[in-house]
C-alpha cells in the first residue's frame, strides 16, 4: 500500500517510455487486424474478387481483370494472398483505384487535410463546449438553466447528423444567407492568405457544428453528472472544512476530477465521430475522406473503401492517443489506472 514517493521521477520516465512502446505495438496490431479484416471482407463479397476490386458497375474489361488478378496474386493460395496484402499495408501501399485510375494513397492524401480539419475542429469544439456547458449545468443542478441545457442536449442527442446539417443549411444559408452551404472554399476567386483562411473558416462553421452537436450533447450531460458526483465526494468536504471559497473549490478541486470521465468517454467516442464525418462531408460536399467514401460507395470502388477504412481507423487511434495524453496530464495515477 505504501508506495515510496522517492524515485517516482525515474519510474515516471520508464512508464512513459513503456506506454509509448505499448501504443506502437497496439497500433501495428490494430492496423494488421483491420487489414486482415478488410481482406476477408473482399473475399466474402459475392462474385469474382477481381471484378469486386475493379468495381461492380461493369467498367472493367478482361485485360484489366487479368492485371488485377496478377497484381493481387489472386491465383495463389489464400494465405499467400493475405501475406502479400499485409506486407503492402505495412509498406503504406494501399493499392490502386481502377475506377479513378490513381493510387489509393494519392487519393486519400489529397483528401486527408480537409477531414483532419473538420474532425479536429468538431472534436475540440464538442469537448471544450461540452465541458463548459456541463459544468454550468452541474453547478446549477435543478435550476431552470440546467433544465434548459438538459432539454437541448436531449434533442441534439436524438438528431440524425445529416438532417441537422440540412436544417442548418436551410436556416443559415438558404433563409438567412449568413454562411456558405457547400464546399471547402469559394472557387474561382483569388484572395490573400488571410482572406483565404477566413473563407475556409466560414465554410467550416456549419459542417463542424453539425458534426460536433451530438457529441457536445453527450459531453454536456456527462460533465454535468460528473460535476454533481464529484461535488459530493469526501475531499470536497475537506476543502469546505479548510474554509475555501466556492469558486476556489470548483476550480481547484471539482473541475479536474470531473473532467476525467469525460476525457475517457471522448476517447471512446472518437471512432463514432470519425464515422459521423462521412455523413457530414456528404451533406456539405466537404472534399474530405468522407466525401470520397460516398463517391466510392456509389461506384463500389473497393480499393478506395478499404484504404479509407484503414486510414480512418488510424485516425481514431491517433485521437485515442490524444485523449490518453490529456488523461495522463491530468491524473498522476496513470500507472495504476485500469484499462477500462
Amino acid at each position: 500500500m505504501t508506495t515510496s514517493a522517492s524515485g517516482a521521477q525515474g519510474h515516471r520516465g520508464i512508464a512513459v517510455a513503456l506506454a509509448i512502446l505499448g501504443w506502437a505495438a497496439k497500433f501495428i496490431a490494430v492496423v494488421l487486424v483491420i487489414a486482415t479484416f478488410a481482406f476477408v471482407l473482399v473475399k466474402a463479397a459475392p462474385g469474382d474478387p477481381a471484378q469486386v476490386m475493379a468495381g461492380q458497375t461493369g467498367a472493367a474489361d478482361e485485360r484489366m481483370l487479368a492485371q488485377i488478378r496478377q497484381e493481387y496474386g489472386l491465383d495463389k493460395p489464400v494465405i499467400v494472398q493475405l501475406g502479400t496484402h499485409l506486407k503492402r499495408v505495412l509498406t503504406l501501399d494501399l493499392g490502386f483505384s481502377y475506377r479513378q485510375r490513381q493510387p489509393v494513397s494519392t487519393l486519400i492524401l489529397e483528401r486527408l487535410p480537409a477531414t483532419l480539419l473538420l474532425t479536429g475542429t468538431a472534436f475540440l469544439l464538442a469537448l471544450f463546449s461540452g465541458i463548459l456547458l456541463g459544468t454550468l449545468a452541474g453547478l446549477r443542478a435543478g435550476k431552470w438553466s440546467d433544465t434548459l441545457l438538459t432539454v437541448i442536449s436531449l434533442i441534439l442527442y436524438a438528431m440524425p447528423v445529416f438532417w441537422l446539417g440540412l436544417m442548418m443549411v436551410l436556416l443559415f444559408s438558404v433563409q438567412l444567407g449568413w454562411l456558405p452551404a457547400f464546399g471547402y472554399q469559394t472557387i474561382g476567386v483569388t484572395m490573400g492568405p488571410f482572406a483565404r483562411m477566413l473563407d475556409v473558416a466560414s465554410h467550416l462553421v456549419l459542417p463542424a457544428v453539425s458534426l460536433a452537436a451530438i457529441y457536445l450533447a453527450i459531453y454536456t450531460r456527462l460533465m454535468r453528472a460528473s460535476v454533481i458526483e464529484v461535488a459530493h465526494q469526501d475531499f470536497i468536504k475537506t476543502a469546505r472544512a479548510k474554509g475555501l471559497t466556492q469558486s476556489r473549490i470548483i476550480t481547484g478541486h471539482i473541475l479536474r476530477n470531473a473532467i476525467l470521465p469525460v476525457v475517457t468517454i471522448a476517447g471512446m467516442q472518437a471512432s463514432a465521430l470519425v464515422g459521423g464525418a462521412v455523413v457530414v462531408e456528404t451533406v456539405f460536399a466537404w472534399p474530405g475522406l468522407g466525401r470520397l467514401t460516398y463517391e466510392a460507395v456509389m461506384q463500389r470502388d473497393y480499393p478506395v473503401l478499404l484504404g479509407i477504412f484503414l486510414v480512418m481507423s488510424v485516425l481514431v487511434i491517433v485521437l485515442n492517443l490524444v485523449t490518453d495524453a490529456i488523461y495522463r496530464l491530468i491524473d498522476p495515477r496513470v500507472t495504476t489506472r485500469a484499462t477500462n
Partner: protein
Amino acid sequence: MDTIRAFSRHPSGMIGLAILLVVLVLAVLAPVLYPEDPWEMVGRPFAPPLTDGFLLGSDTLGRDVAAGIIHGTRVSLTIGVTSTLAAVLIGVLIGAMAGYWGGRVDDFLMRVTELFQTIPGFILAILLVATLGPSLVNVIVAISVVSWPPLARLTRAEFLRLRGREFVQAAACQGETPLQVVLRHILPNAISPIIVTGSLTIASAILIESALSFMGLGDPNAMSWGFMVGAARTVIRQAWWMSVFPGIAILLTVLAINLLGEGLNDTLNPRNARSGRH
C-alpha cells in the same frame, strides 16, 4: 410492480412512452392509413404540404411524403429492434464470458471488443453493406456488428462486479452450480443496466439505419426515412418539406426511445430503487 409505479411517476419517461406508443400505432396502422404503395406516384410532384390532398406534400416524383413516413416507421422500428436484439445477444454473451471467467478469456475478448470500438463503426457498416449488398437483412447484420461492443463492456463490468460480491460467493458455497449462480444471481442483478443500454441501442440503431439509407445504402425496396431525406437534399432550396418531415420523424422516434431509456434508468437503477439500503 414497484418499478411500473415508479416509472409512471417519471414525467419524461412517460412522455417518451406516449410518443413511442403513437409511433407504434402508426406503424401498425400503416396499411390502413395509406393502403397504396408508398413508392406509387400519386399526384403532382413538388406539391407543398396541404395542397393537392397531400398532408405533408409530395416529393420530386409525386409520391406522398406522409405515406412514405408512415411506411418508413415500420422499416425503422423493425431494423432498430431486430439489430438491437442481435447486438444484445452478442454483447451479453461475450461480456458474460469475459466477466465471469476473467483471466485470459477476458483479456482476449476485451481486446477484440476494444478493436471493434477503435474501428469507426459507421464506416465498417458502410463497408459491410456495400460488400454484402443492400438488403434489409444485411443492414441489420451490419448494424448489430457495430452495436454490440458497448453492451459487451457493460455486461462484463456488471459480471465482474457481481462475481466478486459476497452473495454470489455464498450461492456457490451453498452448492449451486455455476450455471445456476449465473442465471439466478448474477444475470437478474445485471439485467437493469443491460435493459437501459439496450433501449438506447435501439435509438442509435435507428440513427445508423437512417444514415445508411441517406448514403443510398438502404434496402432499395423499403421506403425509409433516411432515404427520403437523402433523395430530397438536392432540392432543399425548392422543397424544404421533403427533407424536414422525415427528419422530424427520426428525431421524435429517437427522442422518445431515449426518454424512455432514461426513465427506465432512473427507475431500475439500484441506487434509486433500493434506497432502503442504509
